């Protein structure tokens, strides 16, 4: 919660249970993604006997700021890392004829290709290194990892997810064309618990999302969402045992049925009057219960019917006519 909004990737700190509850998608990705998936594979290496002057040329032409040092042999062995800083040290004392082995860092901190990216992030956070050579299970050098690689990898993963959502949306929005019947409709059912203020609005939220995914325009999804939300809150506020919200979508029509098992509304006409309310102060503190729910619903739907029998229950039926078939052509 208290983490800086600008750097969701900086998670070198230990993750507490409390923080774990608010892990963002990017942080999740840093657990899902493996180092091997984001590292750079085509890597420039240098040899221990190579002269620093040659390294200078290589860094300049390849536009890199560091490279793993690999000793010849079968298999080739990772013996160190040479950074731009090492090169500068050599430059300072005009020692470009010295071999790499004299300037390289031999205590190499590596990352394993099979590790989650978050492990590498922790290493970057704890050690003052700019790049990590990546090794496989056998200790063989397979790539190199910078923070930039991680950022690119996470962004690509997010992009993939975005495209996957687009595909899902496309598929859902063609549901009604792809399935042939005399009358096709899609029914979504939600169970609403009485007094469950914490989850109040979840069903309506899902209804709105479903409609958007089915290709409804923003205005239509908003109207249905508002009508469903007010009705959902009524179930939470007023019923004894909760109730159900049922949404039926078919080409040309959306029908929302909200049903409960009591207590029932004594005077339906009175309940429909703007401002009439029987809500408690507790409910009013939540920003509801001002007697505007049914009025709001009426504004959002094309027609609504409210039927109630005391001791039996209440049924609210709403219709929203669609100007064109849902889904509208994208």
């Amino acid at each position, binding site marked *: 919660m208290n983490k800086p909004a600008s750097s969701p990737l900086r998670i070198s700190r230990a993750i507490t249970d409390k923080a774990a509850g608010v892990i*963002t998608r990017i942080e999740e990705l840093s657990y899902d993604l493996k180092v091997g998936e984001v590292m750079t594979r085509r890597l420039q290496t240098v040899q221990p006997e190579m002269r620093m002057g040659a390294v200078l040329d290589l860094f300049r032409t390849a536009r890199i700021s560091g490279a793993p040092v690999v000793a010849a042999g079968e298999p080739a062995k990772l013996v160190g890392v040479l950074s731009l800083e090492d090169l500068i040290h050599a430059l300072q004392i005009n020692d470009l004829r010295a071999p790499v082995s004299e300037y390289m860092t031999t205590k190499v901190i590596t990352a394993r290709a099979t590790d989650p990216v978050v492990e590498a992030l922790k290493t970057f956070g704890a050690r003052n290194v700019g790049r990590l050579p990546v090794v496989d299970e056998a200790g063989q050098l397979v790539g190199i990892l910078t923070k930039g690689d991680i950022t690119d990898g996470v962004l690509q993963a997010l992009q993939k997810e975005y495209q996957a959502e687009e595909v899902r949306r496309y598929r859902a929005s063609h549901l009604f064309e792809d399935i042939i019947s005399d009358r096709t409709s899609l029914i979504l059912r939600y169970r609403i618990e009485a007094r469950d203020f914490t989850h*109040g*609005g979840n069903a309506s939220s899902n209804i709105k999302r479903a409609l958007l995914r089915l290709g409804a325009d923003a*205005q239509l999804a908003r109207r249905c969402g508002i009508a469903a939300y007010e009705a959902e809150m009524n179930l939470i506020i007023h019923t004894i045992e909760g109730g159900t919200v049922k949404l039926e979508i078919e080409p040309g029509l959306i029908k929302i049925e909200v049903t409960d098992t009591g207590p029932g509304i004594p005077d339906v006409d009175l309940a429909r009057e703007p401002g009439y309310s029987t809500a408690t102060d507790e409910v009013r*503190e*939540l*920003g509801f219960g*001002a007697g505007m729910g049914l009025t709001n619903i009426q504004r959002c739907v094309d027609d609504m019917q409210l039927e109630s029998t005391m001791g039996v229950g209440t049924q609210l039926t709403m219709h929203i006519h669609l100007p064109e078939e849902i889904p509208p052509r994208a």
Partner: protein
Amino acid sequence: MKLRTIVELIEGQVLSEAADLDREVQGGCGADLMSDVLAYSLSNAVLLTGLCNPQVVRTAQIADVAAVVFVRGKRPPNGTIDLANQEGIPLVSSPYGMFEIAGRLYHAGLPSCEACLD
């Protein structure tokens, strides 16, 4: 007006993660009654409110509210912030009262995003 500009004008503090401060906001509305927001706010408005419970975020999500500003330095409980992060609704806290905040934003050119009684 960009959300960034709004935050600056009201000396606000962004409380939610992943708030896109470059998002364009169409106008403003103010209410403590969520049914009023559902009934009268137009899409893509910044909502000024004194109400801090998670229903504010639900309402914002359903009514296409662009961002929520808590007036008078109010801090919503964690449940509200969690839900806002999940739904991608930016939350801002401003030290000023609703009248002052509305005045500052209106004065700076942010129009009202409240539908008139029909």
